[in-house]
């Protein structure tokens, strides 16, 4: 089997290749159950103002930080300055250098502003952050981000929360061949087959939030994603057959009666 190496990002080894977001669950209890069912070892969180009337939200009361590594994001940031500010606050809140870096370019698509993303990646990497940038499915930008000091690249499969799956598997494949780096599909995964496809392409991991949290039964979908990621990885390692236009018999022709 090929590519048996482990998933290591920022010096941390992960057994599970599924990273899970903590947004949009109906309750904190449902979120905790979904994390458990997913088998994940890293969860994303957002950084927001504490509500002075209600006190700090207590999300971490539902997340065992010994079991799950916390990955703060810079979601909602539309400029380099904002992304840097949120990253630095996230580092202080979580006492970890990991940051899922988002610099968003447009409200309707939530596509990344790759120019800003590149600048922010370079600055944060120099400050000692382990930068995991959410980027386009663009192989050239993936290379630029790695050159700027990113710890991995996280191309989108489709727009955040869209559930459209891997819209351009060929670009993801080219990214995998272009950069000698960890590649994590982030955003767009809507159901188990999308996650499996990402892994069959050779991606190192998948990051899912809405695909799990928005499912009718989030906990069951979390389990489905866990199995899909494992199945996709195994299929990639096993090496699939090539596609052919015509049939090839599975049963021998020798020994037939006529």
């Amino acid at each position: 089997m090929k590519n048996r190496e482990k998933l290591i990002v920022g010096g941390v080894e992960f057994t599970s290749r599924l990273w899970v977001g903590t947004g949009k669950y109906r309750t904190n209890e449902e979120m905790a159950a979904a994390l458990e069912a997913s088998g994940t070892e890293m969860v994303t969180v957002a950084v927001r103002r504490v509500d002075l009337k209600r006190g700090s939200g207590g999300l971490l009361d539902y997340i065992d930080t010994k079991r799950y590594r916390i990955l703060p994001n810079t979601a909602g940031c539309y400029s380099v300055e904002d992304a840097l500010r949120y990253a630095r606050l996230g580092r202080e809140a979580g006492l970890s250098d990991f940051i899922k870096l988002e610099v968003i370019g447009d409200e309707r698509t939530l596509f990344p502003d790759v120019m800003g993303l590149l600048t922010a990646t370079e600055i944060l990497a120099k400050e000692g952050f382990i930068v995991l940038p959410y980027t386009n499915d663009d192989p050239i930008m993936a290379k630029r981000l790695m050159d700027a000091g990113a710890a991995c690249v996280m191309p989108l499969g489709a727009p955040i929360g869209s559930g459209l799956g891997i819209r351009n598997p060929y670009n993801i494949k080219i990214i995998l061949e272009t950069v000698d780096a960890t590649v994590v599909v982030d955003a767009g995964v809507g159901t188990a087959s999308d996650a499996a496809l990402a892994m069959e392409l050779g991606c190192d991991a998948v990051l899912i939030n809405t695909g799990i949290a928005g499912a009718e039964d989030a906990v069951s979908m979390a389990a489905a994603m866990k199995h899909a990621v494992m199945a996709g990885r195994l299929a990639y390692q096993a090496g699939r057959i090539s596609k052919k236009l015509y049939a090839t018999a599975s049963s021998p022709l020798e020994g037939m009666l006529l």
Partner: protein
Amino acid sequence: MKLTVNGEEIDSRAKTVQELLLELGIKPGAVAVEVNLKVIKRAEHPVYPLSERDTVEIVSFVGGG
């Protein structure tokens, strides 16, 4: 003393970041504090002084993707 905390103007007697967190009933655990755009390290909370008209941001983690 008047402070702007998370966008709200409040009256406070806190002389340090730590006293402000106590006054507001916020557990110092997983929060990050910024005073006038500067992130204040947790170890500095007990000693970092607050002054009239300071702008303070107190953030923590919420669910996100």
